[in-house]
């Protein structure tokens, strides 16, 4: 794939095979000064009504203004693909930063993403798919991007844990079974993202990657996550609260989590 609509695709940004993120050259019709945008391409079958819904969702998203949310430039449908373009992350993503990040930089990025999630929640939208690859890094701070739009339109709430083993790492298990995305499920995802970033990419269910899919999913759905002993105690406590099985035991809002995460940053 080297073109979607009138975007010229340069390279892939995320490691996800399904619904990937690309670096692309924006069409001139947008009148942007930037020569690069981040382009999301989701392969979905949209009927007229779902298309209308997608457009409406994009409009609402574009209307939510927050310094912690990426700016949406453009959105549309090209054949069987839904696409939308956003600010290009100059410093990479939390998953693949341009340069290695210090602990405080990781904490600041997750805190910013939590504030972005909170802005969405206040606008009545759940992100549904927060993970390290959708936390974009800029000199001014981090921004949250890439709503889980495609999942929104999938039949049957299906979630794939293959081929990328990290796929389900950041999803609240209750969502996998079909619960409705909420503030609490996004808080769970932020907690899992914090764990991943601060532990150097360790899984919440260690050894899951070596199991067959049945056993791995069984472990994810029924066993509590195991927080890495490598995390400092105060970070582990914040992660543990965000990953509480009962949503009522998690921070009530993403903003509350942002405050907790920001408090972990060592004073200069």
């Amino acid at each position, binding site marked *: 794939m080297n073109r979607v*609509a009138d975007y010229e695709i340069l390279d892939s940004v995320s490691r996800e095979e399904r619904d990937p993120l690309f670096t692309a050259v924006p*069409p001139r*019709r947008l009148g942007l000064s930037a020569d690069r945008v981040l382009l999301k391409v989701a392969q979905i079958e949209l009927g*007229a*009504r*779902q*298309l209308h*819904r*997608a*457009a*409406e969702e*994009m*409009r*609402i998203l*574009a*209307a939510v203004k927050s310094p912690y949310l990426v700016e*949406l430039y*453009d*959105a*549309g*449908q*090209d054949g069987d693909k839904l696409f939308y373009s956003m600010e290009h992350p100059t410093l990479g993503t939390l998953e693949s930063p341009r340069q290695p990040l210090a602990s405080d930089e990781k904490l600041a990025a997750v805190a910013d993403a939590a504030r972005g999630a909170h802005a969405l*929640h206040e*606008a*009545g*939208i*759940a992100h549904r798919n927060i993970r390290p690859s959708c936390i974009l890094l800029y000199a001014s701070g981090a921004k949250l991007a890439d709503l889980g739009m495609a999942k*929104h*339109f*999938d*039949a*049957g*709430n*299906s*979630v*794939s*844990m293959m*081929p990328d083993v990290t796929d389900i790492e950041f999803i609240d*298990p*209750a969502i*996998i*079974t*079909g*619960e*409705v995305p*909420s*503030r*609490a499920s996004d808080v769970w995802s932020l907690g899992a993202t914090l764990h991943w970033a601060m532990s150097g990419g360790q899984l919440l269910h260690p050894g899951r990657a070596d199991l067959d*899919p*049945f056993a791995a*999913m*069984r472990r994810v*759905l*029924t066993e509590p996550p195991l927080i890495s002993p490598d995390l400092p105690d105060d970070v582990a406590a914040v992660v543990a609260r965000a990953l509480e*099985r*009962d*949503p*009522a*035991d998690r921070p*009530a809002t993403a903003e509350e989590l942002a405050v907790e995460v920001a408090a972990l940053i060592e004073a200069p």
Partner: protein
Amino acid sequence: MTPSPRVEVLGGAGTVCRDGTLVAWFAPGFPPTRAHELLELARSSTANGAAGLAGALETSDSSDSSAFCVLVETDGTFAIVVKGHVVVSEDGLERLRGTAGKGLVSADVATAASLTVRGENDLDQLNRPGSVPFDLRDGVVPGGGVTFWAAEPLPASAPPELDENVVLFDLSMPQAPPRAPLPLASIPASVISDVEEPTEATPPEPTAPPEAPVEAAEAVLAVEATELAPPAPPTPPASAHQHLVRGVNCARGHFNNPRALYCGICGLAMVQNSVVVVDGVRPPLGVLLLDDGTAYSLDGDYVLGREPEQAQDVAAGLARPLKVDDGTGKISRVHARVTLQEWDVVITDLGSHNGTRVFNPGETSWRTLRADESVVLQPRGRLVIGQSTFEFQSIQRQ
């Protein structure tokens, strides 16, 4: 040069006219002299907006009853006036409809991705002729209606033409009112899992027909409706379109399977309250995990097969299609059904050619289901069709 919308003529009976920013559609048999008069009035009207345009057209004789629609586009905003059986839809959703009487109906519509004008009598024709994918720049042609496609600002030089498959969304203007913030409190899952079609509110008998479906689009709508809804009281679930079952609450008020040893939400042991059986909305029962790693949430029924959309229950919206094709040729088009009954996951063979095999924990051998034969799939039980294996994974600790 300012960009202007592309005007695509739709098949069907009637007449379409375009003169610059003025576009009109007239019903079949509309008197030509009257049409010319209306076009002239619209052209010479200096009033602003749809109300102004309607005023200009009202002044003329409106005793005839034929339907028409006149649109004038100014900087991406359409002033629209319709009369009679005409429907104007914006991005596929109805926006304006003429009245059968003599009066004119008017509205201003800001730029939509698409705007379609069509005679009402044409709407229900299943096999109506398709559109003509050309841009009518000027002139009069036969046609059952028109679709405007929003113009994009013209680039400074040699624009790469957007393919006709591309539809751009206008992000500038939300057309729905802002949503309420998401509910703060975590509501017990049994109350918010409202993604089912309307169904009888009475608790079903064990032999009741499979409960209502969650078609993809419906699920989307329901999810959004949930987002909009204020926090619901935890009990009782009042809505008629939630699937009610008998269950028990854990000490923290989460609704569970009476047979559960631990709460599926918070993991508490089910001891204190498990004697009190109450009605509640059934939470998802877990997932059906395919051996390729895809998990399907058990919050509704599925039909499995190579072409499950051919199943009557799928067409009727009673079950979602779950397409499985492992390339072995051993999976029938419509192979098996997964039905949620109360708290059980029931597998039924739908007359497949090679049968449906089920293996439940504790049993010593596989069981092959014949046509229309059913069996309850236990947690960690496996289901095989062709060479594809599914496992039912309950969120309940066993």
